């Protein structure tokens, strides 16, 4: 349970919206982690204060809180990473303006000068692209083309078994280098769209296969979809819901030429519309079986 937001902001329950905003601003100025990069405690306090203000700063939410319709917990912002957590590590925003004058004549000049010196020979920078693929295209591989803004076309070879998030590196297809440096690479990040029936875990494919009551009881041959087309599979008698059958080598191709497997999870389905014949038949069934035995004891 989060603290009372009125206490956190230090305002009375009948304070005006204006007073609440003032109280928030006064505290936030003191506590914002990015305005106090050396103060480690500030972060927790700031989070508390901004969560309180998220509730009280909005007249509607405040009224609902006062009526007890919402509580102060869970109103906080999603996990926020503060700028100070990154800024010191160096980024495109890093500034040396705060000490550049030291560099002129100090023993530190070497230290400070280090970053400023330009490299005469530079490799070209990498260029990032993103490419969305259909589930089956990623598994079976193929060729794709990316049209660049200058009208030229980049051929991308999709190797079979490409997975979501994988980055394909096209050597020398990035920016050209400087002073004889070699060109950078094109990095193509692959995003694989999900499939209607297949899911992929590593090199294996998983699929749910609905079967009828008679197929479940008597067994028989059924057609099963795989990434390379459907195949016939033999169901043993008494194939229950949840039974997993493996189709060896029907999964995702690996680099070494072998392939993952497809796992077929059976799901026994009754006919969608009630079937009087089946009802009469089952009513006559004398079998005794309690599938919930394990749950009881």
């Amino acid at each position, binding site marked *: 349970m989060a603290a009372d937001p009125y206490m956190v902001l230090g305002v009375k329950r009948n304070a005006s919206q204006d007073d609440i905003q003032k109280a928030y601003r006064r505290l936030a100025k003191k506590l914002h982690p990015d305005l106090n990069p050396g103060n480690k405690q500030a972060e927790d306090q700031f989070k508390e204060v901004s969560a309180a203000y998220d509730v009280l700063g909005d007249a509607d939410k405040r009224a609902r809180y006062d009526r007890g319709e919402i509580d102060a917990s869970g109103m906080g912002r999603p996990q926020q990473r503060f700028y100070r957590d990154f800024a010191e590590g160096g980024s495109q*925003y890093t500034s040396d303006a705060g000490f550049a004058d030291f560099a002129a004549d100090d023993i530190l000049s070497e*230290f400070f000068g280090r970053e400023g010196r330009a490299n005469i020979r530079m490799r070209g920078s990498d*260029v990032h692209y993103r490419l969305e693929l259909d589930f089956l295209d990623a598994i079976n591989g193929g060729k794709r083309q990316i049209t660049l803004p200058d009208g030229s076309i980049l051929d991308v070879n999709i190797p079979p078994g490409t997975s979501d998030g994988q980055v394909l590196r096209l050597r020398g297809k990035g920016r050209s280098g400087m002073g004889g440096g070699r060109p950078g690479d094109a990095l193509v990040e692959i995003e694989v769209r999900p499939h209607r029936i297949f899911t992929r875990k590593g090199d294996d494919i998983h699929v749910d296969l609905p079967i009828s009551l008679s197929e479940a009881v008597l067994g028989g041959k059924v057609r099963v979809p795989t990434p390379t087309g459907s195949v016939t599979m033999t169901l043993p008698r008494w194939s229950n819901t949840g039974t997993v059958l493996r189709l060896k080598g029907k999964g995702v191709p690996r680099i070494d030429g072998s392939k993952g497997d497809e796992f077929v999870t059976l799901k026994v389905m009754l006919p969608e519309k009630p079937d009087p014949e089946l009802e009469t038949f089952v009513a006559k069934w004398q079998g005794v079986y309690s599938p919930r035995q394990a749950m009881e004891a």
Partner: protein
Amino acid sequence: MESLEFVLQARIDANVLSQWIEAGWLAPHRTDTAQYFSEVDLARAHLVHDLQQLGVNDEGISVILDLVDQLHGVRRVLREILSSIDAQPESARHQLLAGLHQAMSERASDVCGPTQTRDRQAGQSF
């Protein structure tokens, strides 16, 4: 991440994003086709948002971001200096610290002499 994901995560409008980029508050990595944002950009966008909540106007935000970046630059160099001092043999470390200590106390006596009396007077008048 690309612009679309960034505006969702930063919870800002697409046109607000382009204003912030134009103001120099955000500097995403650009390719010819798109711009890419990193976690740093996201954290910085949160900072801009918080500053606006604090009632800071646009000019103020530019000044604050610039000073915050300078402060981080200084902190970074200070940290590097401290860690390289830390890596020195103990005798060198002691020598450095002693020199630093002396410099600080000299400066303190330079500055504090006249100000101290002024402080006292100010205290009495309240």
